[in-house]
C-alpha cells in the first residue's frame, strides 16, 4: 500500500518523501482520533439543535438565557 507523502524541513534542506511506517501509524492514529472527535462534535451539535428546536429558540437566545 502506498503511504501518503510528508515534508521534512531541516534548516535550509527540504525533503518531500513517502511517510515511513512509523510516521504513517502516528498519522493514522491522529486521523482516527480526529474522525471520532468530529463525530462526537457533530452528535453534540445535533442534540443541541434538537433541544433548541423543541424550545423554539435560537442558539444566541439560549446563550442569553444561560448568561
Amino acid at each position: 500500500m502506498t503511504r501518503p507523502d510528508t515534508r521534512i524541513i531541516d534548516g535550509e534542506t527540504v525533503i518531500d518523501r513517502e511517510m515511513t511506517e512509523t510516521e504513517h501509524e502516528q498519522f493514522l492514529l491522529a486521523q482516527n482520533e480526529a474522525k471520532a472527535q468530529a463525530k462526537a462534535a457533530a452528535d453534540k451539535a445535533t442534540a443541541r439543535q434538537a433541544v433548541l428546536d423543541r424550545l423554539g429558540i435560537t442558539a444566541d437566545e439560549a446563550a442569553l438565557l444561560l448568561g
Partner: protein
Amino acid sequence: MPNEQTSVPLFASGEVLTAQNLNLSAGTGVPVFATTVTRDAAFGGTSEKVLAEGQLCYLSDSNIVQYYTGAAWATVGPATSGALVRVGGGTLSTSTTTFSNVFSSAYNTYLIQGNDITVSASATMRLSISGSGGTTYSSNTINMTYTSATVTGDTYNGSGNFVIGTPQTTNTGFEMVLVSPFLSKATQAFNRMSTNTNCWQSYGVDTNAASSVSCTILMPGAQTFSSGTINIYGYANS
C-alpha cells in the same frame, strides 16, 4: 590599502585591467572565511592586505557577516542572539510537515508562528513533538465565529497531538508558545488562531517528559496544505 573608495570604476570596452584595478575590486569585496581564526590569519601577511576599518567578511561556521571597526570585528547579522531568535521554519506541504532540529538546550520556550495557511478542506490542524509518540497530550479549545457571541468549547484528553484549531480554505494565521519541549519535562502549549470567519484559543499539555528536538504540523485526514509559512523562534532564557 584602506577600504574607503573615492570612485566606483566603470571599465570601457578595450581598457587594460591593471593590478591596481584588480586589487581595488578584489580587496573591497566580501571575502569568505571558515572561522574567525582563518579570518585573522588572512590579513597582514606577505602579499596580503593590511586589515583596515570598513573591511567586511563572511564566516561560514556561524553564517554571519562582520565588519572591522578599526579596532575589532563586529557582527552585521543575522542576529545570533537576542530576545527572540529564529531557529527554523519553512513552507507547509502535503498533510504533514516536520521541522527537524529546532528545539535545543539553547532555549526553554519557543514561539511557533504560522501565516497564510490555506488547506484543501477545513479540519482541525494539530501539532506534535518528536519525543512523544503516544496519547499523552491534552488540549482544551474555545472558539467563536465573528457573527455570533456563542462560545464553543471542546476538550481533547488523551490525544496524540496538541490541537491548534480549524483553518479555513482561505488564509489562516496562528501563534503557539511551547514551553520546555527540549527539557525532560512535560510540555505546555498556549495557542491562538484566527481565520476569515472564526477565532480559536487552545491550551494544552503533553505529560510525556521525553526531550523533543522536532515538531510536526499536520492535518489528520485527506486534507492537505495548499499554502502556509511557519517560523519558529527561541525565547532567550535570560
